[in-house]
């Protein structure tokens, strides 16, 4: 349940950028499939934390990316949705992770009337 800590971190980041607490309509984030984050658990935690921290009840829009990997056995570059998807050419799980661990707050949309 480190999603609870992460939800706190998200509101702290948003508060820092906005410089104040305002009601939000939407929060857009990106979560990579190798980040170790459960999107649904994060949504559950963020909904509560956002309300408590004075950001209203924003919709959390999660952009779930695919991981980019390179096979260490046959050099094929491929994309995967989780840790278990091996190389599509040779099946190997030996790979270098190029991306997939990302977790960013991308943007927020203010509720109408907030500026």
């Amino acid at each position, binding site marked *: 349940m480190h999603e609870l800590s992460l939800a706190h971190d998200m509101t702290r980041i948003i508060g820092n950028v906005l410089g104040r607490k305002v009601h939000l309509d939407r929060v857009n984030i990106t979560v990579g499939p190798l980040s170790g984050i459960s999107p649904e658990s994060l949504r559950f935690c963020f909904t509560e934390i956002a309300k408590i921290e004075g950001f209203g009840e924003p919709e959390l829009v999660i952009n779930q990316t695919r991981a980019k990997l390179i096979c260490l056995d046959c050099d094929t570059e491929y994309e995967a949705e989780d840790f278990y998807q091996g190389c599509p050419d040779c099946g190997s799980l030996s790979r270098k992770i190029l991306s997939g661990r990302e977790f960013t*707050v991308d943007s927020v949309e203010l509720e109408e009337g907030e500026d």
Partner: protein
Amino acid sequence: MCDEIIEQKIDITTSVMNKNDLFAAENRGFLKGKGIYTLNLISSPGAGKTTVLESMAHYFGSRMAVIEGDIQTRRDAERIEKAGCQAWQIETGGACHLDAHAVKHAMDQMELDSDILELLAIENVGNLICPSGYDLGENLRIGLLSVPEGDDKILKYPSLFSTINVLVINKMDLLPHLDFDVDRAIEECRSLNPDVLVFTVSAKTGEGMEEFCDFVESNYS
């Protein structure tokens, strides 16, 4: 009233782990400056992290200090102190992992004497999931798996076992009594993490511990 439509979308583009990663970099620099090599020890509860550290305390003595992470109690720190090392207990009060800021805060309060200390071991909160996302500023990330947990655990917790530098399989003294396939565990860990180094030990009997401690020491000496 102004009829102009105000842009309501505000760009943030910030990594949520950014703050932790900055503290981790600061910790790494601070410890490097003191010439202290740092381990982050991660396992499920009961895999034997503290027993491994007690065994390491016999090898390293006062050259090692330990930061203990637990939800509650100073029990582990007391065990390490009894084994002859300086120990600092972080009680997270509920948090399921240590973060780099908590480690910095602990280090600020410890006496890290660079004339004596060579090694700082951080025992993370017993958990195979949450600690894996938090860089603490360590030089070596060690995943500890114990024989009673079963040999099929590695692929169940890929976010940890794909990010460790070293896999230590502990409680090898129990191997004759349990159906733990060491080769399978190693093979599955290497499938996620081809560069991982593996040590098989029993912290209780001391089997394999000298080899492991020699390896830790060889990383900085």
